[in-house]
């Protein structure tokens, strides 16, 4: 029922707003919240509680308790008491079977109590074990809050904004405003209610969620998350009205004083007909009740006992110090409690102050201050722990339906500290996050353990202080994707793409076997722009490389390339690639695609320690790279360049700067895929021209899958695929790279101590084992397959595997388990295809 016009009311009676609740049309006013409009229209039961499905009604009207949570426009768990009313909004009940008035699951309250005491799920429904999935399914549907939209579409855009300010004031009450006005510099005030005119900047309605290290305060403002960094954080979050503990304290009609205040002053709604007031804070709303025409049947500051009676969950009467009084509104106040959570998160100490019965923050860290009621500027006597009177359930935590009996039982079972009791009973773990129940829980626990509140303390405050949607925290749906300069061409060719690290690369262009054939029989080209590329230049470059790698590079002739493998100081293989010498003091290093950043960091770290006069320049992105391979490679390239490509002039493992289709390139004659080939590196902006020229000369594009087959036919190892974090150079049969006569290199100290428990070998088989297939010897697992592919050329499956060292002999037999059966396969140490490397050197 709407009262006549109240001074300062928020509603605009000239602007009615229509919306739907549970399928029925309801009308409110602009300035209403969904909750106030529903109450004005006669709704009293707003939800069903989490566990017992008890009817719940408006209690705080401040967005703190869980009682008014409904699903609004598909968004679950919206607190309608503070949700601004919008036209045509669709509001529905949640966590009910039927309606909120006639919830079939309400039977849980009548019957379930004795069977669902605190922690029941730890002791019941354990046998038979196979029935647990059924139990779980049933339980899941009996309790819980709203339903999430499983299509995963989310509810609109979420934005993230970064801000840096000098002073952030959290809370726009009198203390907060005064602090903001007095502050110097770039000042921002946030408040979870409305904005106001001020000489400083105001962000409202906006809720501060947490205080993190580095002065980071995330603030939720609708669909925008403001990540604010402040040099000074002033917490002015005020104090929270606390409920009282008495039997029947969750009945519809029990309200906190602020709830009444808002109903009357802001929304001109009559909260009830006959009221009883209990507690000092309750007395403060006598004015509102008088204006609303509510009869005050009785008011008591500190009764000895209190019980609330109801019917079908709605308040009908109270027993106050033994005297029965009929009423439909019970305004209770357990005093105020400073809202300390953000300060606790920031690292303040929370201390109990018995004189006023409150927890106050002290020992604030640098950069964090507190003002106003949040600092403890309150005058009151401590509220009673529990008001006796017997009867129905007395709730400590209305979010989680935890009763005083539950807390006592938890203590009896040994969970007698606040942290243990919290985890066992789930008290303070609900949507209010302790705003309405932390103090009560501590008090109850103190009584049940015969100690005091100081001894019990509070639970650790953790972000977020107020529930927040995951969507807001996540922000935009995006994922950084690295694309090579030839990405558009791969897409145009209809390539099947895959992820390697953050790179998006082509897996195949439709028929990898045909791609392999093209390389063997004619000519192929693959985009290898993702390779790491590093220039190492300076007087100290050669010595630096000698010291970073087990290999020697100082004796590498100009224009020549050498394979290099990086190891850690523990002798483990980290990465591999090639090193080409382009000048006396100039080297060009390549690394694996996913390892490039790590290798540059590694080089830079060691040189920060050693201090060689050498520049380490990451040119991975500056250059594109393409591998042209196949018997026709020389012929095709010859038509595109003036350079002398004769074998005597441009030998295998030579590096030359040539122009291809007019584009300056660095051409490296290397052979990862086993055929005559040239790897062309050019400026990324010219990649398309070079690629088009090569394809125009008859090269078939081939991609990662074909490359895998080709390199496996040559027994070429891929670091990270065929090696892992324990592999060393000896076990990987690469000890030829180690030049032990060098005075120092990373990994030198480990060389004499390297363990060879297994060795990496090639094998051929008639069956194709999957990656990871076990190598079995004498009944035990002796190794595993790291790579395997069917090879048309070789006519069998080829692969690499780790085996017992004694088996690392040409022709030895190993057993591989495939689909449960053991298959004997032959070990081959030489490459399966062109073992002499004649084609590479042709």
């Amino acid at each position, binding site marked *: 029922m709407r009262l006549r016009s109240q001074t300062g009311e928020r509603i605009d009676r000239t602007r009615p707003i229509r919306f739907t609740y549970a399928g029925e049309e309801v009308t409110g006013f602009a300035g209403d919240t969904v909750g106030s409009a529903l109450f004005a229209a006669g709704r009293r039961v707003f939800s069903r509680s989490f566990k017992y499905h008890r009817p719940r009604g408006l209690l705080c009207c401040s967005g703190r308790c869980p009682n008014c949570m409904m699903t609004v426009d598909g968004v679950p768990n919206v607190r309608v008491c503070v949700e601004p009313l919008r036209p045509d909004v669709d509001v529905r009940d949640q966590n009910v079977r039927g309606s909120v008035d006639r919830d079939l699951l309400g039977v849980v309250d009548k019957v379930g109590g004795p069977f669902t005491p605190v922690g029941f799920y730890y002791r019941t429904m354990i046998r038979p074990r196979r029935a647990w999935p059924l139990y779980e399914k049933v339980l899941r549907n009996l309790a819980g809050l709203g339903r999430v939209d499983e299509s995963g579409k989310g509810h609109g855009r979420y934005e993230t904004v970064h801000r*840096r300010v000098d002073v952030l004031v959290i809370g726009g009450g009198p203390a907060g405003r005064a602090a903001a006005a007095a502050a110097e510099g770039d000042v921002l005030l946030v408040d979870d209610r409305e904005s106001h005119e001020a000489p400083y900047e105001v962000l409202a309605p906006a809720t501060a969620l947490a205080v993190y290290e580095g002065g980071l305060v995330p603030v939720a403002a609708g669909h925008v998350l403001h990540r604010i960094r402040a040099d000074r954080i002033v917490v002015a979050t005020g104090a929270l009205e606390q409920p009282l503990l008495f039997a029947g304290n969750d009945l519809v009609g029990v309200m906190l004083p602020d709830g009444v205040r808002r109903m009357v002053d802001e929304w001109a709604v009559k909260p009830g007909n006959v009221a009883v007031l209990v507690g000092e804070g309750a007395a403060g709303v006598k004015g509102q009740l008088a204006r609303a025409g509510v009869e005050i049947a009785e008011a008591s500051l500190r009764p000895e006992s209190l019980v609330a009676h109801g019917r079908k969950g709605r308040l009908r009467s109270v027993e106050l110090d033994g005297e029965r009084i009929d009423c439909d509104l019970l305004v209770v106040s357990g005093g105020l409690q400073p809202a300390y959570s953000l300060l606790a998160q920031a690292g303040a100490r929370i201390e109990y102050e018995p004189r006023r019965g409150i927890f106050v923050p002290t020992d604030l860290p640098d950069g964090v201050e507190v003002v106003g009621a949040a600092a403890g500027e309150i005058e009151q006597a401590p509220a009673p722990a529990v008001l006796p009177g017997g009867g129905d359930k007395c709730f400590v935590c209305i979010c989680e339906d935890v009763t005083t009996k539950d807390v006592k039982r938890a203590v009896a079972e040994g969970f007698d500290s606040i942290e243990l009791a919290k985890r066992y009973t789930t008290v303070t773990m609900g949507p209010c996050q302790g705003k309405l129940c932390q103090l009560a829980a501590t008090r109850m626990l103190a009584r049940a353990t015969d100690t005091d509140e100081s001894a019990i303390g509070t639970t650790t405050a953790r972000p977020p202080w107020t529930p927040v949607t995951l969507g807001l925290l996540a922000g935009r749906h995006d994922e950084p994707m690295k694309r090579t300069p030839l990405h558009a061409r791969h897409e145009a060719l209809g390539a099947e793409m895959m992820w390697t690290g953050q790179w998006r690369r082509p897996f195949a262009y439709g028929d990898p076997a045909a791609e392999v054939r093209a390389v063997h029989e004619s000519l192929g080209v693959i985009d290898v722009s993702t390779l790491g590329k590093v220039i190492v230049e300076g007087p100290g470059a050669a010595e630096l490389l000698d010291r970073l790698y087990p290999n020697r590079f100082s004796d590498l002739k100009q224009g020549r390339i050498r394979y290099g493998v990086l190891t850690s100081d523990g002798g483990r293989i980290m990465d591999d690639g090639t090193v080409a010498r382009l000048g006396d003091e100039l080297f060009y290093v390549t690394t694996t695609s996913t390892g490039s950043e790590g290798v540059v960091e590694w080089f830079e770290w060691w040189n920060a320690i050693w201090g060689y006069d050498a520049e380490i320049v990451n040119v991975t*992105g500056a250059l594109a790279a393409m591998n042209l391979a196949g018997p026709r490679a020389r012929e095709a390239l010859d038509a595109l360049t003036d350079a002398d490509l004769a074998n005597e002039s441009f030998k295998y493992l030579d590096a030359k700067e040539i122009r291809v289709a007019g584009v300056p390139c660095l051409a490296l004659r290397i052979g990862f895929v086993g055929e005559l080939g040239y790897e062309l590196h050019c400026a990324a902006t*010219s990649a398309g021209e070079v690629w088009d020229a090569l394809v125009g000369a008859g090269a078939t594009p081939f991609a990662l899958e074909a490359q895998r087959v080709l390199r496996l036919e040559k027994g070429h190892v891929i670091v990270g695929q065929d090696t892992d974090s324990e592999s060393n150079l000896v076990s990987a049969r690469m000890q030829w790279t180690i030049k032990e006569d060098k005075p120092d290199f990373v990994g030198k100290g480990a060389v004499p101590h390297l363990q060879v428990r297994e060795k990496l070998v090639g094998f051929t088989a008639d069956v194709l084992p999957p990656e990871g297939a076990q190598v079995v010897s004498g009944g035990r697992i002796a190794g595993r397959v790291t790579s395997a592919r069917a090879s048309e050329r070789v006519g069998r499956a080829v692969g690499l595997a780790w085996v017992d060292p004694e088996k690392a002999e040409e022709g030895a037999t190993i057993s591989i388990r495939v689909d449960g059966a053991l298959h004997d396969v032959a070990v081959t140490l030489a490459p399966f295809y062109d073992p002499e490397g004649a084609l590479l050197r042709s």
Partner: protein
Amino acid sequence: MTRLAFLSPESPPLRILEVRGGVPEGSIPIGPDRALVVGDNPGNLDAYRVYDQSAALVAIEVESEALLRRVTELTDFPAAGAILRGVPAVVERRGEGFRLFVPQELSQYVVETIDDLRSGL
């Protein structure tokens, strides 16, 4: 061919040189002794080691402070630091707005993301 000719695009949209060994006048500092020299009049760089990163980086304009606030936490420009989800970038003021230099392999991601963020302003 000139030194490292294969690194240097012939006519890039913007010439961007990474210099080592100091911070020349008018350049964008990106480290204690590293800088980016942008544009066609680099001046005399004989005292430095120069590497052409014109093909490595893409310049992107962000026209307003409001948009930049959605892209990065960085203040105090010019700065080398993270934008969006960990993308390393160099950011400088340019008139009313800003110019970002980002790795070319991530440039499409950055442009698409900034376009989308702009639409949400």
